């Protein structure tokens, strides 16, 4: 039942925040902070007892499960379940949720209640996406997280927010519809094969169909996730959405929405159509590498700070895509680590950009420069997260990127070498960003005040997470290990019959040699 609470609390919190909007602005903020904080505590509790309550469900590492009928007629069930992978991402959601509420404490002035309503409902939608095991329910949550996000950008955004919000909505909605078509295609293919009409993920896993149809359905899923992931050709909504979104919106957008795309790939696109995914993987890896280089070069060229950070996300997500389609143990673990660390470090960079915008009312890099002398703490934090985004060893992103590259090297050497050159350009853009914002000649007019206690606490917390994952990633690795083994096995392109046997996967493995 705890899973239902995980989703229900932000929903009610958001509603409550909106209702309490009558009073002063502080009430909704505290309500939504409380709601998301409870969620974070719940997630931590789940993480504490993760190892013992292993494999509640057949076929692997699910350890908490809620199942009840929703529309039995069509075979749609309200089926939530959590394994190591979704646990990590749910914790990331709650963590960044707290950060986004905290960072918009002073930034959002008008209609605060409605703002927090949208924020909470997006978070609930995202958590739903990570937990849903019923494809219909998954699509429901996929749409649920989209609409409030649109309002977040459209109502509280910056200059041409309408253009950005509409573009974001159309991109995601259109690709979502493709996914819906693919879900239905799979639904009917499964029905034709086994006569059972169901949307349940575990049953749908084994459907075998002719390769062409499988490839078509897989592409349906893939397009939706590649738009969300922003893979190379479908990424152009991201810079606009990021530039115009309010700080909290950017944090949620960069930190979480991009992960739903990656999670979708890991959970649905590849395991459901293993052979098609295998055939498609060279193209996908090429797209990934193109994304890495393209995102990096464009990040280097931007004049707007948030737009620059947005393009870095395109580049980092290229690594995740590379990891997913390399589909071996190393690459997948790398992709998971990269997802978590990218969420935290890019979230922090956006909070910083938001703080800077609040102080000097502009995101133009031309106006910044020499801010270190005025705000040394902000400079140090900016430098730290700039280094995190270029993959400095000792920080989390390095672990993610290198595990992906180690894994991808086994699959294709050429792709990995090109991706590694991406690291050099990554160095270029992040140092260039730090140079233009913090170093250089000191200016007189924008004298930003340094980070306050609240902001510094948030930043310290995030820095701690990045360094902790950088130096001791085993906690995160062991959590996601069980889930990834199940995924790899279910997509191991093995004969369907063999997959049906319930391989009892010990949820927690021993703590390594």
């Amino acid at each position: 039942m705890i899973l239902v609470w995980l989703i229900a609390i932000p929903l009610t919190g958001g509603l409550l925040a909106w209702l309490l909007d009558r009073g002063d602005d502080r009430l909704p903020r505290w309500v939504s902070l409380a709601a998301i904080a409870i969620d974070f505590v719940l997630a931590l509790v789940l993480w504490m007892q993760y190892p013992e309550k292993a494999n509640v469900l057949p076929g692997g590492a699910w350890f908490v499960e809620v199942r009840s009928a929703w529309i039995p007629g069509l075979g749609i069930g309200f089926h939530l379940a959590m394994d190591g992978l979704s646990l990590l991402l749910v914790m990331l959601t709650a963590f960044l949720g707290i950060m986004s509420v905290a960072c918009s404490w002073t930034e959002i002035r008008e209609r605060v209640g409605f703002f927090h309503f949208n924020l909470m409902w997006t978070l609930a939608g995202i958590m739903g996406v990570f937990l849903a095991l019923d494809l219909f329910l998954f699509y429901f949550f996929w749409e649920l997280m989209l609409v409030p996000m649109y309002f977040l950008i459209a109502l509280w955004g910056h200059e041409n927010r309408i253009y950005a919000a509409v573009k974001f909505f159309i991109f995601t909605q259109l690709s979502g519809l493709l996914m819906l078509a693919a879900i239905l295609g799979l639904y009917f293919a499964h029905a034709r094969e086994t006569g059972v009409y169901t949307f349940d993920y575990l049953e749908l896993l084994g459907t075998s169909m002719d390769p062409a149809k499988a490839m078509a359905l897989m592409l349906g899923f893939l397009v939706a996730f590649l738009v969300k992931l922003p893979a190379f050709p479908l990424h152009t909504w991201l810079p606009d959405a990021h530039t115009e979104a309010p700080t909290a919106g950017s944090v949620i957008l960069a930190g979480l929405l991009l992960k739903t795309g990656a999670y979708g790939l890991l959970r649905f696109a590849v395991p459901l159509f293993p052979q098609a995914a295998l055939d498609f993987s060279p193209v996908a890896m090429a797209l990934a590498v193109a994304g890495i280089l393209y995102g990096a070069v464009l990040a280097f060229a931007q004049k707007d700070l948030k737009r620059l950070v947005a393009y870095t996300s395109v580049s980092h997500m290229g690594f995740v895509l590379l990891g997913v389609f390399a589909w071996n143990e190393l690459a997948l673990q790398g992709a998971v680590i990269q997802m978590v660390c990218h969420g935290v470090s890019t979230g922090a960079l956006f909070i910083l950009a938001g703080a800077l915008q609040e102080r000097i009312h502009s995101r133009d890099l031309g106006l910044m420069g020499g801010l270190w002398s005025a705000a040394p703490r902000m400079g140090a934090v900016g430098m730290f997260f700039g280094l995190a985004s270029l993959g400095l060893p000792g920080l989390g992103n390095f672990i993610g990127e290198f595990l992906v590259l180690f894994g991808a090297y086994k699959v294709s050497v050429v792709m990995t070498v090109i991706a590694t050159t991406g690291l050099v350009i990554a160095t270029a853009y992040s140092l260039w960003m730090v140079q233009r914002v913090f170093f250089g000649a000191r200016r007189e007019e924008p004298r930003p005040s340094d980070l306050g206690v609240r902001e510094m606490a948030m930043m310290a917390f995030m820095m701690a997470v990045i360094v902790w994952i950088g130096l001791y990633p085993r906690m995160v690795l062991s959590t996601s290990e069980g889930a990834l083994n199940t995924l790899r096995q279910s997509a191991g392109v093995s004969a369907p019959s063999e997959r049906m046997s319930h391989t009892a996967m010990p949820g927690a493995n021993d703590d390594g040699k």
Partner: protein
Amino acid sequence: MRTLLWLIPALPFAGFFVLAVFGARLREKGVAAIGAGSVGVSAVLAILAGISFITSPPPGGSWTQTLWTWIGVDGFRPAIAFYLDALSLVMTLVVTFVGFLIHLYATEFMSDDEGYSRFFAYMNLFVGSMLTLVLADNLLLLYLGWEGVGLCSYLLIGFWYKDPANGSAAMKAFIVTRIGDAAMAVGLFLIFMNLGTLNIQEIMQKASHTWPRGSGLAVAAAALLLGGALGKSAQLPLQTWLPDAMAGPTPVSALIHAATMVTAGVYLIARTNVLFLLAPPVQAAVAIIGAATLLLAGFSALTQRDIKRVLAYSTISQIGYMFLALGVGAWSAAIFHFMTHAFFKALLFLGAGAVILAMEHEHDMFRMGGLRKELPVTFWTFLIGSASLSALPLVTAGFYSKDLILWYSWSSENGSPWLWAAGLAGALLTSIYTFRMVFLTFFGERKKEAGRRPGRVMTIPLVALAVLSVIGGFAELPRTLGNMPVFSEFVNTVLPPVKAAGEAQSAEAAMQVVTSFVSLAGVYVAYLLFLRKRRYVEGLAATRTGRALHRLWFSGWAFDWVYDRALVQPFFWIARINRDDFVDLFYDGIAWYNGFFHGALSLTQSGKVRWYAMGIALGTVIMVGIAVVLL
């Protein structure tokens, strides 16, 4: 003592953490105490570890201390583990001891600079990373230290961030070294995939079993690691960043760009010597690159006006010697030269720092002169350093180490007369530009009053390093002069001994006479050209070819110009023209066409009833037509 091994790198990191978090609140005294103190204590620890290591050598010739498993993903299990053997002991001792001296010097040199705590935080971070690099037990941890030192060199070069030029020099350094690191990373991937492990000792055993000599994989792995080494040690073709790195404070140049970081590449090649032995073409390449670099850097150093840039090019040249030694298989000679070079080059930089301080941040040698009497201690220590750099015979450490390298480049198995000749020419060039520097700064008429004299705290390191750059050489007396190869015996417990062709002792003696004659000749030439008849040099430079040569050498053989044209400008150009993402045009195009068709269709709504009737009729006709055709 074994269990305290992890403290050696941990202390500087702790120093960094304390200074980073509380630095702003501490007074300068406190910051200095923590900054220099942490490195000092780890130096003491290193010495203690050294003593117990030498007195009671452990069975396998090495200590290993594993703190925790860093990443645990099925076969990929690198650990945070430190590995101490003869080679890493020498490196640790040099890094901590010279590091401590430079920290001491910096406490006074940087006094009343507004980023004082930030400076020492970065310096401690650097020493910590360097020690992690040197003591790393597996290549991934080594890579962590590798990037850590690269980061600190970026932070410290760009320390005075107010001047954007320093910022761009810092970025240039980090990006150029990062190119090397990318190559090294690919090397790591290759090694892991083929050998299944990153632990250095396992790699050595597995490589020699699985890879035959000269096999493609061995060559690829060695070449990629060489790529990383070239980047970090500023050898051809990635050497352009070091001269610009002089934008940082002088103690930084002394510590990072002379003594420790730039020799990381030498350490890497020495540590993974088995790979290079398995790949003869790559080892030959190392020798050739070393020889070429030492010549190029030598010529460039001749024409520099800034005292620190002369020393920078001299560093590139001396590391070229180490690469030459590695290339010909004289592993211990390379490490020995690393040690002596660390001493006298750090001394020269600190001396230059004292001079610059005295001259109120004047870097141009031609505006200094006659400081002999003004700064006596600095002068004498600087002279000893220069002597050691240009390897004046018998009395200086530089003589023993450089002579050893020249001898092995002649006598060793894969040495060759050409390499030896290049080395010799390099030695001549070295002594010319060194003593040109000495005469220009310390002799001749005084042009500017000497301002701030170096205080006591600055002179202690100068004197200590001067002593070391003299007695340092006696640790390795060649056969002809006392035959006490203490150093190489110690280091050869780890590194393979040199395969000399068994030349007669007399040949070695003759060789030593030739090298010492060459270095003295260099001094005399420098004396002639730059002290007595300066006009002659101006005349030479005035000729057309002279001017062209001067411009070429001054700009570091125009590598910067070539790289700028070939790589940097195109990258900027691509970035600029594609600033707003041509892929976006595709989607905007879709939106535009959408609007266009909307316009076209709205014309049909003309408001006239009869048109609509016509439309309905047309529709019926078509539908009936279809029905007719189909039935």
